């Protein structure tokens, strides 16, 4: 099937139907909504107070106001973006509804599009209140980053979706036995993408690995903005190029894993 054929068959109403399904679920369960806000708030408060403490005791941190809070908020975009994508997918497996969807006219690309939309919705519910709390508690206004924030956000959310797509493929192929990947895979990115420290801290050989990951450019770009007050558009473009490649690799892996799931008969099972 050509790209044009696939595009012509794309159905927004089907995507909308699936988004509605997740929205109905979310709004019917207050613990699910609370869960979206609770942990980002705790993390932001912890890193914010730590930043206040070290700023009182070290001149560098006094100048680099908000770098920890900025890091934790951007990290949450990356982490919660992937989690929002993967949890919506997992809800289908918990509900034993996956076969209903796979047997329906819903295309894989529409399924993925719906999961992306839900990732944005869940991220908005979780992070917008936390950014407002950051202003109230620490005077750190993430929104004041303006165009830079848009560039950071686009790159981070693209990476989170790529990882989410890959994890969804693993779940299709391996059932809930692969569930832990959905919760933990992003933590591999935490040390490697240098969320809280510059890339130069890493050993030389590991720096090559770090620069192969799009979020590294975002976190370096954030530090350049907050510490040196320079917006590094070059870093954002490099991150975007890597993200396009990562998205293509993840989508291909998803389709291969889906094909393998059809061969192994795991679409009907979805269990352990």
């Amino acid at each position, binding site marked *: 099937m050509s790209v044009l054929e696939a595009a012509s068959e794309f159905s927004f109403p089907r995507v909308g139907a699936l988004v509605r399904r997740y929205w109905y679920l979310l709004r019917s369960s207050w613990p699910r909504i609370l869960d979206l806000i609770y942990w980002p708030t705790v993390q932001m408060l912890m890193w914010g107070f730590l930043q206040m403490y070290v700023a009182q005791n070290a001149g560098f941190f006094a100048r680099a106001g908000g770098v920890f809070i900025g890091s934790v908020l951007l990290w949450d975009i990356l982490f919660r973006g992937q989690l929002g994508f993967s949890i919506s997918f997992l809800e289908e497996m918990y509900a034993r509804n996956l076969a209903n969807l796979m*047997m329906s006219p819903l*295309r894989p690309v529409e399924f993925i599009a719906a999961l992306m939309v839900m990732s944005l919705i869940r991220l908005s519910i979780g992070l917008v209140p936390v950014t407002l709390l950051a202003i109230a508690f620490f005077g750190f206004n993430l929104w004041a980053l303006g165009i830079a924030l848009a560039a950071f956000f686009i790159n981070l959310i693209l990476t989170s979706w790529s990882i989410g797509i890959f994890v969804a493929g693993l779940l299709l192929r391996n059932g809930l036995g692969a569930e832990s990947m959905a919760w933990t895979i992003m933590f591999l990115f935490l040390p490697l993408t240098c969320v809280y420290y510059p890339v130069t801290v890493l050993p030389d050989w590991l720096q090559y690995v770090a620069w192969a990951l799009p979020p590294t450019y975002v976190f370096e770009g954030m530090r350049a903005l907050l510490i040196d007050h320079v917006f590094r558009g070059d870093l954002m473009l490099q991150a975007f190029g890597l993200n396009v490649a990562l998205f293509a690799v993840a989508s291909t892996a998803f389709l291969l894993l889906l094909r393998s799931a059809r061969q192994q008969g795991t679409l009907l099972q979805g269990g352990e």
Partner: protein
Amino acid sequence: MDAQPTSAIVADRLVKRYKTTTAVDGISFILPRGSVTGLLGGNGAGKTTTIAMIMGLVTPTSGSVRVLGAAMPQERYRVLHRMNFESPYVDLPMRLTVRQNLLVFADLYAVPDAQARVLELAADLDLTDLLDRPTGKLSAGQKTRVSLAKALLNRPEVLLLDEPTASLDPDTADWVRGHLETFRRTHNSAILLASHNMNEVERLCERVIIMKKGRIEDDDSPERLLARYGRANLEEVFLDVARGRSRHPGETVK
């Protein structure tokens, strides 16, 4: 085996092998449009794998299966909107209300005037009072009726049913069978029905395919099967096949 224009499902030397087992071992059959066929067999006979291949959820190792002329799973998107299924092994989301579930699936199947169709099915399947209740709060029998409503949303030309009356009390089960008969008559749909309820199969099906160890052990109308095995009901025929007893006239049934 040629696919006839009137065929709903054509399976041709269909094989599915997993690493160490052969779930389906070279089965062939043609189901015409408007027919109701029972698929019988003990646990592990290959019924679910056969249905999964027809639905495009499992890729055959060899052979082919075509639904309404489309090869499955390669050409599934040509026909998925014209088929549907119901199985007790697949649930609808529990926290969504019956109405929400049915409307979501109506949109996935691009059902015109979805609200009206949901109300129509709710009336047909006695679900009107349950429409705004969470699906997870329903009894097993009510859930089965909701799943059946989901399966009938798009007025499918091919309907695959796995134990459609499991968990239903005899009265409701009989009523559902009546509804399925009416649906088949009015829509000329082909129905493939996997069931362990032999009375249900005798009542609904004009043809019965009996599977054992991945192969078709027998394939005929209920009347001819009863005559051939010299039995009074399909349950006895099923037991004869399951236990390897003779089916030939004149031979002593052990």
